[in-house]
Structures are given as C-alpha cells and as structure tokens.
C-alpha cells in the first residue's frame, strides 16, 4: 500500500471515529440535561417537605381570654378571645423589646398564629389556665432563613428579615426552639397567598376531578370510534376523511383546545367557569385522538385467525368483535389510555384559558367547584415574587412527576403482564 492510500484510509477511519463520537456526545448531552434538570428540581424542592416551627410558651389565661364562667364548655372556648394570649405568647420571646416594636416579633410567625393557639386549646381543653409550650408556624421568610435558602449577609434594608429578627432567631435556634418537622400541611392545605401556609390539596383535587372527567368522556368514545374504524368502517373517502381528522387532531397545539373550551363550552353551553368539569372535557377532546390511535393499534395487533375462528363458529361480525377482538385488545388500549391521561395531567395552557388559574383557597368537593390543577398551581406559584414559593414550586413539580412516573409504570405493567404475544 502506498503512502497516499494509507493517509486516505487513516483519514476515513478518523472520520468514522469522529462521527461515532458525535453520536455519543449527542446522547450524552440529552442525558446530561435530564440529570441537571432533575438535580435542580430536587435540590430546590426537597426542603419544601420540611416545615419550620417556632416553639414558645402560651399562657391560657382565662381573664385575658374573657371567659367568665368557672367551668367553660367547648362552646365558651370556641367563642373566647385569643388575640391577647397569642400576642403575649410571641412577645414573651423577648420581654425587653419596647411595646411599639412588637410587630417585629409577630412577623416571625404566620399570620394564622392566633388560630393556631386557639386550635391547640380546643384539642386539649384541660390546658386552660396553664402555661404550656406551643409550636407556631414560622413565617416564610424565617422558614427560608432556617433552610439556608436566604442569604444573611446582604445589607439589612434589602432583606425581608431584619437584624433584630435574625438575633431572636439565632437565640431560639441555640435554645433548640426552632423545630423542623415533616410538612404535612403542604399536602392538606389549599392554596394560600402566604408561602408558609400554601398547600397542594386544592389543586390536587382539581387534577383528580379533571382526570376523572377526562377519562369518563374520552375513553368510551375513543374505544367505540377505534372499533368502528378498525373493524367495521368501509374503505371509502369518508373513512379516510375521519382518519386524516384524527391524525391532525393529535398534532393540534393544546392551546387551541383551550380556545375551543372557552369559545364553545363556556360561551355556548354556559358550563361553569374555572371548574374541573370544563377542564376535564377540554382535556378529553385533546386525549381522544391519542386513545383512538392506541386502541386501533392494539386492535390491529389481534391476529386475524382469532376473528376467522369465531366467524367459522357462526358468530356474527359484531359478536366476533365484542366477544373476542375487543377483550383481547384491552391491555394495549388501557395502557394507551393511561399514557394519554398522563399527557393530559401535565397540560397547563388549555386549563389557564378556561379560567382554572383563579385563586382558589378552598378544597373542591365536586367537579363543578372552582379549582386549579397541579400544573396550573406550578404556574401560579412560579409567578409569585415571594422567595418561599420557589421551593413550593419545585416540590409541586416533584409530586407531579411522581404521578407521571406512577402512571407510566402502570401502563408498562398492564402492557407486559396482560398483553398476549401472538407468535
């Protein structure tokens, strides 16, 4: 082999190695992004599952609570005045503070502290008249300081927590009076304007209702349509037209479905705004083509020998389909449905357009109550300026991703466990 040929060959081999390397880099980049993304979300979000409490002492002083009877009933306790004792419980933290600066201490706990003191007593009425330790929800700013998400070394006027509050915080922390416990209220509270109180209960229920409505509308229609198109439809122009329609519908941007929901469901049918009912129907229109396509694929996968055997036994076309083909195709259809629903679960834009972005601070009990949904909640919180919401958004994302993973796992399991292999 002469020199020129060898050079050329080496060049070609180098090009080969380079090309392969590019492919590996591309895959590496995609995986790297996924890793960075997951790391960012989890490292920001995991602190939201911890809640910071301030421990102080409260004196359930009958006089200050304006209770006049000797043996107050629960109802008396319910109607008692808690403002003074709750206030005192906070100012007790630093008795040397002049009275006009009391607000600085009060601002260290969530604005519901009076309610928390009240609930504490109502749970244990025997504490009346005693001085007992109590834990109060820390304000979101203090919560962020405690979790280390908030820089302490910037100038005081740029901080939401001032030097005095930091001093008290350090003192309490040293005494062990700052507690960090699992944040149950994140799962049981509805949305709130205050980051320390905001939870995902309302949006979670909204999501559950929307997905159920979506399932109830899209699954039956999609399965029936798929059966027709795969088993009964004559080969003609109209059937082609329906098929083209379904394929195009699957690629229409989701926001257009939101416009449809707004222009038809709300404006023409006058369905109630901001509710999971409308949200679910809108999502079901979006999921419909996905499920139809999945159901058709799994009907197609049933081998013709099954149909021929049934027909040979004297079954009609309808009986063959309903008794044999459809049951055999169900695992594939179901896993396709779950994947379609998982897509709908993460959808945000159409729900915003039909008004599910309204601030809802009650937990919806039915599909016709106003509600948000998890992805919309992510959007709402991420638009909030308060620092405390950043970790809430990340935690909400973790919950949402958890659901998506569960649904996809379910789809996989159904597919692998129940689907028959024909060959």
């Amino acid at each position, binding site marked *: 082999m002469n020199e020129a040929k060898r050079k050329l060959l080496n060049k*070609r*081999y180098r090009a*080969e190695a380079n*090309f*392969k390397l590019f*492919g590996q*880099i*591309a*895959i590496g*980049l*995609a*995986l790297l*992004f*996924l890793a960075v993304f997951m790391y*960012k*979300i989890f490292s920001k979000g995991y602190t939201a599952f911890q809640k910071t409490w301030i421990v102080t002492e409260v004196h359930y002083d009958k006089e200050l609570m304006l209770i006049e009877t000797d043996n107050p009933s629960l109802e008396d306790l319910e109607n008692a005045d808690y403002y003074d004792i709750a206030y005192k419980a906070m100012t007790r933290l630093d008795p040397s503070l002049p009275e006009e600066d009391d607000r600085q201490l009060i601002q260290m706990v969530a604005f519901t502290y009076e309610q928390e003191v009240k609930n504490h007593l109502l749970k244990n009425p025997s504490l009346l008249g005693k001085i007992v330790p109590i834990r109060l929800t820390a304000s979101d700013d203090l919560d962020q300081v405690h979790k280390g998400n908030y820089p302490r070394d910037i100038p005081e006027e740029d901080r939401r927590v001032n030097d005095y509050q930091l001093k008290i915080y350090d003192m309490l922390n040293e005494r062990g009076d700052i507690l960090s416990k699992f944040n149950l209220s994140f799962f049981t509270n509805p949305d709130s304007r205050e980051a320390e109180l905001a939870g995902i209960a309302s949006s979670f229920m909204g999501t559950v209702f929307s997905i159920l409505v979506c399932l109830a509308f899209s699954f039956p*229609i999609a399965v*029936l*349509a798929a059966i*027709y198109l795969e088993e*009964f*439809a004559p080969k003609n122009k109209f059937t082609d*037209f329906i098929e083209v*329609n*379904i*394929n195009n*519908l699957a*690629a*229409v*941007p989701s*926001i*257009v479905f*939101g*416009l*449809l929901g*707004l*222009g038809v469901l709300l*404006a023409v049918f006058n369905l109630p705004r901001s509710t999971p009912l409308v949200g679910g129907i809108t999502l079901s*229109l979006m999921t*419909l*083509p996905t499920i139809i396509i999945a159901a058709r694929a799994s009907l197609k996968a049933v081998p013709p020998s099954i149909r021929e055997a049934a027909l040979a036994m004297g079954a*009609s*076309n*309808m009986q063959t389909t309903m008794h044999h083909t459809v049951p055999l195709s169900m695992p594939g259809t179901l896993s396709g449905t779950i994947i379609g629903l*998982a897509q709908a*679960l*993460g959808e*945000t*834009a159409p729900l*915003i*357009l039909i*008004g599910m972005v309204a601030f809802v601070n009650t937990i919806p009990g039915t599909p016709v109550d106003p509600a948000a949904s998890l*992805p919309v909640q*992510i*959007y709402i919180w*991420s*638009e909030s300026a308060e620092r405390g919401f950043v970790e809430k958004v990340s935690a909400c*994302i973790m919950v*949402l991703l958890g659901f*998506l993973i569960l649904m996809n796992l379910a789809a996989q399991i159904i597919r692998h466990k129940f689907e028959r292999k024909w060959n």
Partner: protein
Amino acid sequence: MNLVLISLILLLGFSSYYFGRKKATIIQSSQRLTALPKFYGYYLAIWCAAPALIIFSLWSVFEPTIVKNFILADYLDQNLTKNELQLIYTKVKALALGTYTGDINNFLDNSAGKYIQIKNMANNAKIVIVLAALILSLSYAYQSIKKNNRMREPVEIFLKWVLFTASLAAVLVTIGIVFSLLFEAIRFFQSVRIFDFIFGTHWYPAKTFVRDGQPDPELMKDAFGAVPLFAGTFFIAFIAMCVAIPVGLLSGIYLAEYATRKVRKYAKPIIEILAGIPTVVYGFFAALTVGPFVKEIGNSLGLEVSSESALAAGAVMGVMIIPFISSLSDDVISAVPQNLRDGSYAMGATKSETIKKVIFPAALPGIVGSILLAVSRAVGETMIVVMASGLAANLTANPLESTSTITAQIVVILIGDQQFGDPKTQAAFALGISLFVVTLFLNVIALTVVKKYREKYE
C-alpha cells in the same frame, strides 16, 4: 327534574331488557326462536330508551333558544341592540330565579312571569312528549317481539350506528375548533382590517382598552399588527430547532446504527422521559435556571442580555423536542432496508460513510417529516414561552432580547376574566386561527411526506 326523567328512562330501559328476554323464552316454549333470547331483550331496551333519550336531548338543546325568542319578542319594537337584548334576557332570567338584585320595572316583572310560565309549560310538554315517545316505540318493539321477527340484525345495526357516531366525534371536534375560532376571528376582522393584522408591525392590544364604549378606530389600526408575534414565534422555534436537530438527529442515528442492544434498551426510554415532562415544568426551569444562567454568561462577555431572553426559552424548548426528533429519526433509519447497508459495506465503505452517503439520503423524506412535526410542536408550545420569554412583543432578531409568540399572547390576553365582544378577546381567537392554520399546514405536509416514505419501503 331532568335527572329524574333520565333515570326513569334508563330504569325502564334496563327492565325492558329482562322483560324482552322473558317474553322470548315464553315464545321459545311453543316455537323456534330466530335469535338468542338476549337479543329480544336488547331490542326492547334499545327501542325503549333510545328514541326517548334522543328526543330528550334535542329538546334540551333547543329549549333555551326558543324560550329566549319568546321572551325577547316583546322587546323587538324597542330598537335595542343585540347586547342590550342579551342583558335584558339575563335580567329576566335572574328575576325569575329570584337572584336578581337591581331595579325592577313592570316590564321586566311581566317578562319574568311569562318566563316562568313558558318554562313550566315547556317542562310539562317535555315530560309528556318524551314519555309518549317512549310508550309508542316500546309498544311497536313489543309487537315485533310477539311476531318472533329476526332480532339480531336490528340490534347489531343499531350498535354499528353507535360506533359510527363515536367515530364522528373527532370530526365534530375539528369542526368545533374551526367554527369557534372562525366565529370570533370574523368579528375581530370586522373591527380591525385583516391587512393591518397580518402586515402590521406593532402589537400592543392593551392600548385599545377603553372603559365603556368603543375604542378609537385609529388606535385599533395600530394596535393589532401581528408581525412581531409571527416573527417571534418562528424565531424561538428556530432557536429550538438549532438545539434539537443536531442533538436529536445524531442521537437518533447513534441509537439506530451504533448502539449496542443494551445501550439502546436503556438510553432510548431515558431520552424519551424528556418528552414526558410537562411543559410548565420546562417553563419553570427555563425562567429560574437557564434564563439567569444565559444572562450571567452574556454579562460576563460584556453583552446586554434580557433576563427573559429568547435564547433561554428557545434552548429549553429545543431540549424538550430532542426526543421527538431522535425517536422519529431512529424509527425512520431503522426502516431503511438492510440490503442498502450491505451493498454499501460490500463496496468497502465505512459505517459512517454508509450512513452519510446511503442511509441518510434514503431516510431523508422521513427525517424531514419528523423535523416538520417537531417544528409544528415548537410553534404551538405555550408554557415555556409564557414563563421564560417576555410578554412584550418586540420585533427583533437578537436572541438576547426578549420577544413574544402567538401562543404567549393568547394566554396573556385570555388569562383572568374575558369579555366576549371585546376586540382584545377576539384578537386572541384570530391569533388562534393563524396558529391552527400554520400547525395544520406543517402537519399535513409532514404526514404526507412520512406516508409516502413508508410506502416506498413496504
């Protein structure tokens, strides 16, 4: 009331199934049946419930319009506009329901009385007619059961119609989309010239907001120019494709041609996770992490970077699209027949030369199709842009500035309470229809290309 009626119909339907089957077994004792007994049950049940339910739903759909026309007939001589009539009707309805809180005049009071009267009449008539239809059809069906007619065929034909109707749902949704968009968009183009919309370069709809009354037509002319949005949409989509095409295509090729079975088994689903992450999550990530990151790098290079730059939104969108391109091109490349590869190897070509000179050209139509699908996806993507790119519509080609898109503007306009009839709201629908047309166009081309390609190798 309606619920009671529906449950009554359904209850009768279910019970007539058992009744029909029973009747069939009685016939069976004396003569041979022409179908299985359960088909007699189905037959009776269908005839019992279906006509009644159809009449019921048609009635429920048309009743409100008819009642409205009856009520508003009294006001026709007063030369009122459509909106005023609507307002009066809302008042009358509220008054009749006892939820009205405003001045009540005699005229309204009369109408409310009439409304209640008509509503009652309509309700009673509905019950009578629905039940009458039910009884008539039930007795007809019962007659044919008695005669031992063939029962399976009509039941199956009915089922087939049900299946057919379900398959029309997709068509109905498309029609619904087109009409709801067109309806509002046409009204928008009555107040804003279509020319100003498509070629105007200044988008600032908030300017037209005027409390009570019509905005100045001169203002309207200059506020709804959609060119900055079209440009922004394609600009961000372009940035996204700059990220997604190289990475997606190369990883697709690698997975299809180089990867071992094991790598493929794990890498492919992991990359596809990127497609399953909700877009709002990408939006949050772009706004909170990528945006500031891009800004920091830009500032350290001495560049002026907006914290909501088109680059950040586009790049994150590109990452979202990677799996679409990689999966689709993987499929397309795997579909290229093996003998093309074998021929190339036999000539002494290396693997990469085979890919570049033989497989890639053979798979090109399919790859182009998948890229077009990805572009349509990028154009329709909403949440990333809403959260990470700006909301002000700048006409710019600088990726470091903020820009806005069609989808983002639709959200901006329609978030919160909307007033139908307001040109701003209608503008959102006009944007919606342009988005629909663009994506439809891309999809149709992509699907045709892919279909043609598949046919070639099958």
